[in-house]
């Protein structure tokens, strides 16, 4: 079972990863966007960390709903509402339970990813965060405890955005010139999924 602590660990690992990789994310965003993705997420996850400290939400769902809300209130840009919705929607699907099974989480994450797709109107292949989130959610749907393979799926998905032409977000303005660059949002999504795997490993040990 995955408890509240697991989700806190996830988000704290995510915050650390985003902080560590912020410059790289911004660099990627400067090639095909507006050079703020790293700064955006660093600010957002710092707010999440602070809120989790301050409010101490008691259930997995509450942790994710709180985190999503903080992202919405502190990030801005495209990624704020999208990542905010991802976490809020996933959290809402988890309901009020104190612990959730990996199967429940895999289902909830699918809901969350679907909500991102609905909100932003993007589908896999559009060169967005969905190109990392979708394969990760699909991997967990197949093997709910396979966090490591979810991580590889997300990482592969992020890498696979390189040859794509962007159809959503700022990068789409570049047309053909968006080809050959890795999408910053897919890259940060891969970090979030890797953080999940990290939280799972630490739990196992």
């Amino acid at each position: 079972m995955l408890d509240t602590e697991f989700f806190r660990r996830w988000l704290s690992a995510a915050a650390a990863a985003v902080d560590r990789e912020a410059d790289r994310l911004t660099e990627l965003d400067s090639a095909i966007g507006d050079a703020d993705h790293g700064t955006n997420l660093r600010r957002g996850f710092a707010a999440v960390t602070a809120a989790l400290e301050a409010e101490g939400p008691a259930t997995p769902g509450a942790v994710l709903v709180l985190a999503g809300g903080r992202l919405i209130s502190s990030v801005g840009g495209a990624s704020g509402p999208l990542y905010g919705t991802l976490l809020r929607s996933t959290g809402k699907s988890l309901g009020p339970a104190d612990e959730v099974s990996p199967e429940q989480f895999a289902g909830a994450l699918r809901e969350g990813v679907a909500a991102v797709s609905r909100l932003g109107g993007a589908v896999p292949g559009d060169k967005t965060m969905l190109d990392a989130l979708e394969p990760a959610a699909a991997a967990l749907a197949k093997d709910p405890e396979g966090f490591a393979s979810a991580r590889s799926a997300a990482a592969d998905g992020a890498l696979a955005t390189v040859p794509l032409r962007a159809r959503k977000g700022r990068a789409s303005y570049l047309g053909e010139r968006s080809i050959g660059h890795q999408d910053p949002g897919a890259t940060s999504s891969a970090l979030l999924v890797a953080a999940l795997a990290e939280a799972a490993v630490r739990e196992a040990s």
Partner: protein
Amino acid sequence: MLINVPETVVPDALRGMAAAHPELAVDVDNRVIVRGDAPVAGKVALVSGGGSGHEPLHGGFVGPGMLDAACPGEVFTSPVPDQMVRAAAAVDSGEGVLFVVKNYTGDVLNFAMAAELAEDEGVRLATVLVDDDVAVTDSLYTAGRRGTGATLLVEKIAGALAEEGAPLERVEAVARKVNSSSRSFGVALSACSTPAKGGPTFDLPAGELELGVGIHGEPGRERRPMMTSGEIADFAVEAVLDDLRPTGPVLALVNGMGATPLLELYGFNAEVQRVLGSRGVPAVRTLVGTYVTSLDMAGCSVTLCQADEELLRLWDAPVATPALRWGR
């Protein structure tokens, strides 16, 4: 860069703006700039916002005859919903609020969330999207046209109608009309530097330019060897006219991207007027200046709006904001 640390650029600017403009109410902590006399009884309120780095847009356009409030996000990052919810609450006189939103995924999503929340709190709300940038061509395969120079026209003209006491539906309708009558095209002669990145957002060698840029320091659709002012005017004006196909006179905004000297911008305007003349499209009003910017980017954009009597009357109506001021 003339900054302290990247993290405080926006609140620092808001403090400086508050000091320079006692006629505005600047809420630094919550990042909302409000007309000092808001809410104005009987008046529809206009709220806009977007990433910072486009100044004077939007904060410099807050005041009688234009915006009631502006919500600045971080640099090139759309504001968060909380800001717009707070702004709407501060300016709503009961006549409703119009959100003027530039068409970027981030702005659209954040304003949409804000609209939902504000409506929940009982505010009558309408939203107009500005999407005037003809450089974004195939809207099926993109996030759609960007909102650029036309934003100023929408805010000025809808703001004037609101100031006259028109109801929300009419203010919304005129805003939509200005947007659908306007097109823009932008050119970068240099990249800009964001505080967070600390250097240029892309690499543009001297002697080359980017055609079809937006206002977020992103590269354009095409890089070319440097062109003369006249060649750039030919290219930009024709790109706009070919899409707008105006049937009468236009209102022209000849806009600097940030670092282009006014001397050069006026010279560019001469070329813009030449091209308009040769295409038989007179500019009945022309505004030249640095209004919708991309930090310290060198370059320019041309916005043309097919004008009719109503739009011209509202354009000429008094406005009193930090950056745009005439009449009365």
